[in-house]
């Protein structure tokens, strides 16, 4: 049986002024990377706070790494949780080295390990600089180093790549890949969805405090029923010739010129379509398959109101 690192059952959090989270059910299996997406104010951050035990649910129950976050006596399981908040500002006058040493000592982590992590996120050259001189990306990387202290088994990352340049972002994904090899469960909030696709096992879409869709990318694609788009390159002037039979196969032509043809078809008829194109032989020079991206899925689901 797969163990779940995070289990939420009918969790609601209502503030006097608004309902932040309503009837949320979901679980994240151990070692899985779950992306949590939704508009600003969709309840993602509240959900993270609930998981971290910073706020108590109005109704429902949670189990995080087998513990109830409400249980204040057993807060030592927090050693196994790493958290990167969306907006964090550390003490401006402390150096990077002092800050990481402070957080390391709270998790009873050795100094050498904390320096190793600083090296891993690429801050070893800036150890003795004060935090206020750090760029936004460096601050974000310090936040990440801090989250990785103490060998976490569960990582909660709120917008981890904001402020990172493309190289640093790539580096961040490498770190995530390594962590997943070690079986770390990761829950990640991000607006930059497309980059995540390759690494996500599951996606949960939230809208106004409710989960509107949850599952693997394939599940969500099937649920959304968005057409698949194909970009076909053919021999010069042959587009007209192959367009007609394709339309007979229930494909919609969205764009056409002498050499290129873009069509959309239902995901279920993908293979039929490909076989048909294969039969055309040398007429077809190239086929580009465009899967529904996470961004498009997000657009579909985020417009829906809760279950």
């Amino acid at each position, binding site marked *: 049986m797969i163990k779940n690192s995070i289990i939420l059952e009918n969790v609601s959090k209502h503030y006097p002024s608004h309902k932040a989270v309503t009837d949320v059910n979901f679980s994240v299996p151990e070692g899985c990377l779950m992306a949590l997406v939704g508009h600003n104010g969709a309840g993602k951050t509240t959900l993270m*706070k609930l998981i*971290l035990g*910073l*706020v*108590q649910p109005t109704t429902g129950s949670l189990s995080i790494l087998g513990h109830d976050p409400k249980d*204040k006596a057993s*807060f*030592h399981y*927090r*050693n196994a*949780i790493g*958290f990167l*908040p*969306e*907006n*964090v*500002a*550390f*003490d401006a*006058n*402390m150096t990077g080295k*002092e800050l990481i040493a*402070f*957080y390391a*000592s*709270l*998790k009873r982590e050795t100094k050498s390990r904390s320096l190793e992590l600083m090296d891993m996120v690429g801050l070893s050259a800036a150890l003795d600089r004060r935090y206020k001189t750090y760029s936004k990306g460096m601050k974000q990387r310090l936040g990440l180093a*801090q989250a990785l202290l103490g060998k976490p088994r569960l990582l909660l990352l709120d917008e981890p790549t904001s402020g990172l340049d493309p190289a640093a972002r790539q580096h961040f994904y490498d770190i995530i890949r390594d962590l997943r090899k070690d079986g770390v469960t990761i829950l990640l909030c991000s607006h930059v969805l497309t980059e995540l696709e390759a690494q996500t096992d599951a996606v949960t879409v939230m809208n106004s405090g409710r989960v509107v869709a949850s599952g693997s990318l394939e599940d969500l694609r099937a649920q959304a029923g968005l057409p698949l788009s194909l970009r076909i390159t053919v021999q010069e002037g042959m587009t007209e010739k192959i367009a007609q039979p394709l339309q007979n196969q229930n494909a919609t032509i969205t764009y056409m010129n002498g050499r290129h043809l873009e069509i959309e078809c239902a995901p279920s008829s993908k293979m039929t379509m490909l076989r048909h194109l294969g039969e055309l032989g040398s007429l077809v020079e190239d086929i580009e398959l465009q899967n529904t991206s996470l961004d498009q899925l997000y657009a579909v689901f985020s417009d829906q109101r809760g279950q």
Partner: protein
Amino acid sequence: MKTIWIIALKELKDALRNRWIIAASCLLAVLALSLAFVGTAPVGGAKISTMQVTVVSLSSLSVFLVPLISLMLSYDSIVGEVERGSMLLLLTYPINRWQIILGKFLGHTLILSIATLLGYGAAGFLIGFSSNGADLQDWMVFGSLIASTVLLGSAFLSIGYLLSVCVKERATAIGLAVAVWLLFVLLFDMAVLGALVVDQGENLKSDFVNFLLLFNPADSFRLLNLTGFDSTAALSGMSSIAGRAVLPAQYAIIALLGWITLPLLLSGCLFSRREI
């Protein structure tokens, strides 16, 4: 316990880094020295201890300055971190909220003690080893000034945390800090004085007035320093009061300790319940 110490050390380091300690020590030292050497000039050659004269002037000054320093040190310690988001992060660590409050309190008390010791201590040594010299009694009076200043400061630190835990924004906290300072340092005394004047000594017994003073940490401090020793009482013109004072120094000390523990306990309770 180790966790509390980690928090305290961080506060201490931060205060050293942003020169809080140096600034506060210098301020206290300059004031103490100027009071010692300029303020006591009129004493001339009379057989009066410079040290004790300085203690009397210093304690009047401490009453104004130290609460202000303490409140400035503590007013944003909770709400500031909540606003910056670092509190949110800290709370996800294996640490409970009591440890955070106690750690900060310990750190800030250390900062205050160092500043007082350096500031007043420097002045004390200069006076002690200057021409007049100082006897044991002088040193005891001076030592008790430093100790009680730390107590006074801690009481206002504790009140500062209470403010910091209750409010949602830093701006509110600073406003309240100024209000608290005004209330305890100025308004409270004026109210008591006003009541005495209006009453013309008919209903308000002196025991009762003395008792009232314990409800203000600043007055408890004054009571302790100006009437605690006979000689300082004479110098401060309080001997008549001190002579028939019904409240021995222990009461003032207990009142100060109460002013340290109660707001601290209350802020710990409130902070534990608060949702960040």
